[in-house]
């Protein structure tokens, strides 16, 4: 466990995200049972594992949706465990949701623009017209192009197709220019072609950032990830580079074998 093939890299810079013995119980039920993980600066890290294993819960803990029962979370050298979601976001971490979580009555354009405002420093500004903010407009237009929703910019987000909403979900997440990005099953439910588009997009936008993603499609995972962690039953049973994860026997018996059967 905790093999570090890029030990030299991690010595130079502190990890972008550092989890130490994270635990989370809902009532008496432990869901995360002691997770420790270092995600390096600039790394694309995938988390795989069976359904119900606690992947989304882990994301919820990192992003502040829930507070961990115990353990520490450090984002770029700063403790963030138990901070509110907006405070964690302001420190440079953005996430997407497995179940689409957008602003349904706002237009596609507004959805993205609302996501760029804080990071551009507009905060609670009430003395400037939002339409006059050139940098916000330009960044919004660029994101819309990246997620291929430019032609849908004026549609209310609630009427988009499922695949379009998934693309918007990714767009909202990356719009704030966060250094660390968490994507929870970004391609789930997409067609092959849509998923390919999404992967290409993720590859582009994660350039120069740290990416932590949950993904079920093994093709996507082995193709995109620098390292993979396997989360089973609330514990990480292996963290390694893709080729070694593929050969890892514990992983095969716990997860890959059963996934191949399915």
């Amino acid at each position, binding site marked *: 466990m905790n093999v570090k093939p890029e030990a030299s890299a991690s010595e130079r810079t502190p990890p972008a995200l550092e989890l130490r013995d994270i635990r989370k119980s809902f009532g008496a039920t432990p869901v995360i049972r002691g997770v420790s993980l270092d995600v390096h600066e600039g790394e694309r890290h995938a988390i795989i594992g069976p359904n119900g294993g606690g992947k989304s819960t882990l994301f919820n803990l990192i992003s502040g949706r829930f507070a961990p029962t115990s353990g520490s979370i450090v984002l770029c050298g700063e403790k963030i465990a138990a901070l509110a979601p*907006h405070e964690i*976001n302001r420190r440079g971490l953005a996430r997407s949701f497995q179940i689409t979580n957008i602003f349904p009555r706002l237009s596609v354009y*507004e959805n993205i*623009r*609302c996501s760029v405002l804080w990071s551009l420093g507009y905060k*609670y500004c009430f003395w400037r017209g939002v339409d006059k903010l050139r940098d916000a407009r330009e960044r919004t237009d660029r994101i819309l192009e990246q997620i291929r929703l430019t032609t849908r910019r004026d549609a209310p987000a609630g009427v988009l197709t499922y695949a379009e909403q998934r693309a918007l979900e990714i767009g909202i997440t990356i719009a*704030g220019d966060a250094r660390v990005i968490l994507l929870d099953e970004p391609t789930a439910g997409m067609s092959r072609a849509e998923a390919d588009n999404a992967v290409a997009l993720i590859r582009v936008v994660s350039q120069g950032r740290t990416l932590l993603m949950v993904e079920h499609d093994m093709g996507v995972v082995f193709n995109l990830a620098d390292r993979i962690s396997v989360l089973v039953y609330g514990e990480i049973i292996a963290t390694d580079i893709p080729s070694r994860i593929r050969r890892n026997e514990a992983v095969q018996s716990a997860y890959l074998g059963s996934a191949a059967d399915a």
Partner: protein
Amino acid sequence: MSGSREVAAPATVFAGVAMNWANRHKQWLAASLVLLALPHVPGLNSDFGRSLLSQMGIAAVFALSFNVLLGQTGLLSFGHAVYFGLGGYAAIHFMRVINHGLPLPIPLVPLAGAAAGLLFGILFGSVTTRRAGTIFALITLGIGELVYAATFMLPGYFGGEEGITASRTRGPALFGLDFGSQLQVYYVIAVWALIAAMLMRAFIRTPVGRMCNAVRDNPERAAFVGYNTQRVRLFAFSVAGLFAGLAGGLHAINYEIVAADSVSALRSGTVLLMTYIGGVGHFVGPVIGALILTWLQVSLSGYTSAWLLYLGLFFLVTILFAPSGLAGLIMMHGSIVHTKAFWRVLRAYAIALVPAVFMGIGAVILIEMSYRVSTQPELGTRMRIFWITVDAASPWPWITAIALLAGGFFVFRKTWPIVAVAWNRATDEAGAVNMTAQRR
């Protein structure tokens, strides 16, 4: 270089800028002209008409401020009159100070109301906006009751039952205006109403104004893009308080008295009705609602003592059949008004209107007779309704009214398919036009 050129260039630039400004603010220029002309329109150019217009202006600002909460931020408040009333009290005290010699012009009085509205908006808002939804609504209700009770517990400031009075005519003269006439008061209200509407419109289009929409739609996601949702709600609440307070200040100038009714639950309920009937989804919705409800209040109460019942009925019908309000209804028709099938829709409406009128007459006779018999028996059973005299002691008016209501309803139901068919035609046609427009 010739001198005339040097002069001409800035002049043309200035003219260009002015034209550009006028073009971008067409609707506000139009609104100003309408507001300017209204008190001289026949029918409204009396003291009564101008007083009605003044009340409408006050109600419109109040309803717009309420919609900053409801429509823009998704916060349902049952105590918005608190900020109207506290603004009104601050303004009336300010007016008293002017009466006693403070050399400030009377038209600035609403600013005192706005300041108080903002102050109490921040104060109470920091408690209420911690939560949204039902809890928020209940806290606003509680604060409303609290403040209403306070008006009787602190008679020094609130004047108890009688309230506080001041005079708008005892201040320093301003361009020869003394605010004795209703016309001058109307113009003070109209100017402030216009400014308030423009500012609230502008607020929607600021970063924090947009985030109010985001927090309304999905507070959780708003937090994950960096916004403290409580803080965003507090901004909305404070802005709503400010403009409610301004409306209260206008109320103080208009009536020269502010009493406990200005913070009452009844007033909180009325602004909710106005906003909802007008339509929460459109900026002008609350204005439409404020105009109609104020007019109904003033005119209906002159015709019938059962007017509150009619208001309630009107509200019910609107909520049931036009959940997006009158503005929503208007917008709905805006998209088909250019189609050829639009006249079919109008014809269908005309057909449906006939049984609806019979239904309405039946309902009115029933309501009037019941109201008379149950609440005003001392006036006897004979009464005039519309142009007929009926005797509520005889069974025949009751039977006729029920027959009108039931028969009207039966026929009305039969006319609905006609309306539906016409609607479908018109919307199909509008859709086809849109498609070709897009293809081009």
